[in-house]
């Protein structure tokens, strides 16, 4: 059974139709890349899956572990193992990074019927995971994302993902705005998280992230629909030819 099953998903924002019937099946252990031109609905899809309220679902269904994902509140989805790495992580002044991490980890643990981690175990875990994304401990004490560079923000997202160990991770343009070193660090973090129990959806405009994180499947989203699905070679073809031809084909079809 698929971990995530999206059927005919339609969504609009402020009355404007963005997703026009998306179909996608994701199994545990798989990494899917969703590519597409600007405005094709990639980020909308990511936000809808995470439960953002400014997007209205107007049709279709999403099953996650066999359950109706769209019926769950955003925090319930998170606790059930759906993680979104944000394209633009927000700043929260005065709240230390480590505090948010601890609150998040313990909220998820509580949902799973586990006791909250005590300070010592938590610190041990957070140190171990910080090494994964090459973040110094000093970062943990700083306010969430405040004064972080673009690369630091994205590494912080991966750190949160590593701490929460989701079953379904959606990475929304995690590669955008990264220099080559930061991209490598982020990709290493993502690769370390690959596991037979976990599925990942990489939303990206460019294929360069896919040089580091090799996907099992590549999909092209255009005008609110998945218009082509193939293996990794599709990403390379898009790199070579751009998106124009595929949009033309989609419009013709």
């Amino acid at each position: 059974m698929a971990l995530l099953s999206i059927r005919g998903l339609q969504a609009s924002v402020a009355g404007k139709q963005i997703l026009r019937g998306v179909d996608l099946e994701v199994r545990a252990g798989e990494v899917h890349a969703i590519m597409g031109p600007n405005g094709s609905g990639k980020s909308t899809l990511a936000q809808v899956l995470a439960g953002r309220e400014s997007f209205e679902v107007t049709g279709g269904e999403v099953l996650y572990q066999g359950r109706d994902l769209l019926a769950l509140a955003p925090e319930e989805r998170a606790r059930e193992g759906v993680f979104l790495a944000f394209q633009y992580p927000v700043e929260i002044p005065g709240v230390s990074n480590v505090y948010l991490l601890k609150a998040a980890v313990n909220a998820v643990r509580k949902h799973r019927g586990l006791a909250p981690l005590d300070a010592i175990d938590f610190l041990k875990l957070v140190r171990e995971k910080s090494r994964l994304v090459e973040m110094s401990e000093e970062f943990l004490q700083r306010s969430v994302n405040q004064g972080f560079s673009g690369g630091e923000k994205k590494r912080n997202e991966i750190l949160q993902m590593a701490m929460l160990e989701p079953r379904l991770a959606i990475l929304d343009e995690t590669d955008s705005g990264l220099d080559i070193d930061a991209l490598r660090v982020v990709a290493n973090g993502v690769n370390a998280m690959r596991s037979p129990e976990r599925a990942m959806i990489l939303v990206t405009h460019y294929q360069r992230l896919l040089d580091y994180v090799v996907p099992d499947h590549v999909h092209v989203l255009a005008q609110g629909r998945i218009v082509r699905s193939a293996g990794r070679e599709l990403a390379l073809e898009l790199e070579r030819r751009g998106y124009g031809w595929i949009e033309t084909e989609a419009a013709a079809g």
Partner: protein
Amino acid sequence: MSSTVKQLDDWISQPYQHGFVTDVEQDSVPPGLDEDVIRTISARKHEPEFMLEWRLQAYRHWLEMKEPRWSQVHYPAIDYQSIIYYSAPRGRGDGPKSLDEVDPELLRTYEKLGVPLHERAMLAGVAVDAVFDSVSVATTFREKLAEQGIIFCSFSEAVREHPELVRKYLGSVVPPRDNFYAALNSAVFTDGSFCFIPKGVRCPMELSTYFRINARNTGQFERTLIIAEEGASVSYLEGCTAPMRDENQLHAAVVELVALDNATIKYSTVQNWYPGDKEGRGGIYNFVTKRGMCRGANSRISWTQVETGSAITWKYPSVILRGDNSVGEFYSVALTNNRQQADTGTKMIHAGRNTRSTIVSKGISAGHGQNTYRGLVRVLPGAEGARNYTQCDSLLLGDRCGAHTFPYVEVRNPSARVEHEATTSRIGEDQLFYCMQRGLSAEDAVSMIVNGFCKEVFKELPMEFAVEAQKLLGVSLEGSVG
């Protein structure tokens, strides 16, 4: 309205938790104010002649004063003739005797408010003076404190039993003519606390006063005076609540602090007067003058306030830094929700050499709340090497509230260093969504964001009360995000 916002609204709109009324017979003077009323108040308190004279002079001066209008707060004209200026639970003499003589109904009231007055039941290490409308009904741990020469009693008692101290210090920091409300208070003040810490004594426990307004149409005009002699130190905390009523009630207090050489006074307030309902009906007008004088060298006065209640809060706990090397501090969290208004801040007057002051102000506005920081840093010509640091942050929840900042700086000594930082931020849907995507509930997310914002101030509160303050903030966040 989206469901997150709806959820927040429900959670945020928790009712005021201290709004009950205590059913006791009250002995009140009829509404209205004239010299006879003042004579009556003074007579009921068996005051010495000098006190009555002092009141009458203040009253005559008050008659010539105009109500100030320069603040950002708006309210209908107050009819001073419709206020009851003295109201006390019937059936007790003057001055609190032992706890056994206190009306059990009153003891139950404080119990309900979480301020038990039985010494064995109390928070360890906190002495309480309980003020109910116009009188102090009980003061705990007096004997224990007296062993070290500390005087902690109701103000009325101090006037009778320590007239020389009262005469020496009363009005020395806030003169009766200081401002409209201070003059009114000087004329009609009823009760409050008096603390005297003698030379070289560190007060072994927190002193606190719990103010409760109960009677209808009554104004509370409390007067508090704290004196720390050379090398003495004390930490004092006040708490305030009132029943829910549709009318507004005036609370016009005066608090004076005097610190001599090397003395330290730390004054903390958790103000939770009834804020009025969602439409702005009822609630307390909290118009208060609080000022400390660092009279001696190396003295230190620190104000910490958490202001979550009152329909209107209008006050500026201030420090006059007269002694060389003296230090003044002001840490404030002011929250306005629904139709609440706050115009609050501080004045730091640098007169002595190498005087230092720190101001940290955190304003939180939700609903239709209006929150104003107004602060003055004045460096006088003789204040060589004076330093001030001011940080003033505003947090907005939703888009119907407002934050305003009025920092006034007057520097008349070129060696002074004055720094000011200010920020305004908003709890947005994106911040909430971010936290919720990490598994936090909407409530926990708001609470985390707001507490993070206030952290620098909460760490200044005595431990027992920091926890209370955090809870209070959670409960007081009525209004909405959207």
